């Protein structure tokens, strides 16, 4: 009779971010023997250490600075407004500290989760090697996240650049900056630094910023950036970088008709992310590609005892999808199949923390129409509602996309607090509500959410 394998763990999670730690906690609570392996200098993953938390804290500081600059319009005397960026960073560090990631190791150990700091490399389907020690597990969860994609710009490595990981730790701001990439990360950093007086130029290779969102959103975000003094070059590719003197960098770029050069103090690359898949997956048979490790609806890879969650699998690279997927994986791997839960991505909110925020949920008009489905559209500017008057803010819109029966399939908002407002529409999509259901619902006056009601009432 063959010997049954002896495992060190029921579950090993590779990665301690939102994609890994939720499943680890669920499994540990079920009495399973669990370990987490992470090679990053800090536990907790990207979001609290280098991503969402520090950037939102910095953006909050920028918002206060801008409000103080404009306070005299409302009868508030502030005198000269200035900032100390070392203290701005200190505030950011406090926000990161308060997430508790510095104590993550103790937290995990108190929840009976073993922690190994190092690179995990699969030796076979049930074994990983970490710091020359091998650990066998019945199941694995790959939650290794992503890293910045560096586009093929000639000489960029020699000329030098930073990514979001360095950009959150400035103590002194450059005078000029190029941001390569006009997605969510690029737009947020561009606005952040521009608010603090940096002369920022944004290069986006596709014809518009936030290119996966509705064109109306992209156009408005671009127009608002230009109004703030940013130079936004869409449809423009940076081809070459050269060191200019000791501290500056010259970028060579071109669009369809023109080529040009720009010399800046700092180059921030925010041109997307690539999955961390250098784990010896070839030794397990787990399939992967340049987009990451694909899974089925239960978060299993093609090798059924190896699961994946978070940015490394997609389809969205958000903390909220990572923790959602990790919860599904943690549940599914240790329950009977008739209790397994399927991933459902059709009402995942997407937020970009520009000023004002841009948020969306569901499908865009183009995504729906490319499947041959006819649409009805509702569109409302925010400047018609009461809150726009009392806030002295007139830029923004709400777009609702429905099928011909009026069922809401997608929505986009550009407005202050759009990231909060979008959840009403996420619920509407989840429960297949019609636009008239939202239009007939009483919305409090004066709130930004009244714009959602107005947009739903305008669907035709």
């Amino acid at each position: 009779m063959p010997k049954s394998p002896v495992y060190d763990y029921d579950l090993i999670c590779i990665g301690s971010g939102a994609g890994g730690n939720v499943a680890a906690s669920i499994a540990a609570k079920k009495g399973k023997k669990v370990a987490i392996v992470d090679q990053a200098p800090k536990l907790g993953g990207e979001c609290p250490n280098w991503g969402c938390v520090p950037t939102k804290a910095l953006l909050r500081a920028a918002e206060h600075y801008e409000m103080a600059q404009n306070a005299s319009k409302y009868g508030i005397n502030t005198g000269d407004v200035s900032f100390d960026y070392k203290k701005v960073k200190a505030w950011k560090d406090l926000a990161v500290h308060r997430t508790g990631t510095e104590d993550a190791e103790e937290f995990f150990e108190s929840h009976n989760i073993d922690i190994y700091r190092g690179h995990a490399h699969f030796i076979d389907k049930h074994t990983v090697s970490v710091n020359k020690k091998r650990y066998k597990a019945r199941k694995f969860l790959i939650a290794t996240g992503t890293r910045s994609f560096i586009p093929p710009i000639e000489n960029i490595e020699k000329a030098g650049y930073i990514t979001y990981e360095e950009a959150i730790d400035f103590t002194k701001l450059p005078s000029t900056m190029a941001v390569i990439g006009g997605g969510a990360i690029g737009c947020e950093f561009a606005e952040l630094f521009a608010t603090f007086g940096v002369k920022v130029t944004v290069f986006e290779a596709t014809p518009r910023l936030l290119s996966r969102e509705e064109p109306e959103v992209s156009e408005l975000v671009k127009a608002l950036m230009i109004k703030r003094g940013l130079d936004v070059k869409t449809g423009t590719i940076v081809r070459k970088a050269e060191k200019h003197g000791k501290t500056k960098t010259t970028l060579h770029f071109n669009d369809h008709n023109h080529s040009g050069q720009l010399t800046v103090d700092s180059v921030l690359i925010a041109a997307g992310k690539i999955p961390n898949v250098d784990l010896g997956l070839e030794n397990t048979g787990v399939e992967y590609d340049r987009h990451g490790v694909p899974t089925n609806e239960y978060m299993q890879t093609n090798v059924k005892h190896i699961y994946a969650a978070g940015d490394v699998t997609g389809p969205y690279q958000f903390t909220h999808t990572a923790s959602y997927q990790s919860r599904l994986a943690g549940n599914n791997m240790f329950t009977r199949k008739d209790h397994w839960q399927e991933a459902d991505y059709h009402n995942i909110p997407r937020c970009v923390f520009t000023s004002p925020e841009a948020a969306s949920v569901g499908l865009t008009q183009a995504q729906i129409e490319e499947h041959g489905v006819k649409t009805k559209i509702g569109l409302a500017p925010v400047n018609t509602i009461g809150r726009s008057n009392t806030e002295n803010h007139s830029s923004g819109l709400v777009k609702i996309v429905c099928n011909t029966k009026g069922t809401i399939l997608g929505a986009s908002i550009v407005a202050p607090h759009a990231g909060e407002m979008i959840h009403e529409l996420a619920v509407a999509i989840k429960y297949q509500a019609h636009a008239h259901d939202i239009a007939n619902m009483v919305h409090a006056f004066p709130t930004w959410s009244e714009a959602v009601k107005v947009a739903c009432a305008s669907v035709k």
Partner: protein
Amino acid sequence: MKKHIVKRRGHTEEFDERKLYASIFNALTVVRVQTADAELIAEKVAKYVKDWLTSKHEVTSKDILHKAAKELESFNDDAAYLYLHHRSVS
């Protein structure tokens, strides 16, 4: 730091850059790459694999094979194919 390679039969060996260099060089010469070029390419591929190993303590011989073949492919497709599929040259 010594790097351990887990061989097909489960035992481990230390990573030997010279051995990797030799097998890459052999594959290149079989497809008639000039000796001087073959030396240069083999050196680059071996260095690439060595750099890749920096953050790792233990990998399999299959990992080395695939990593080296992928890098070799960017210089010479035929040699990479030969290196990957004909173990007698490696």
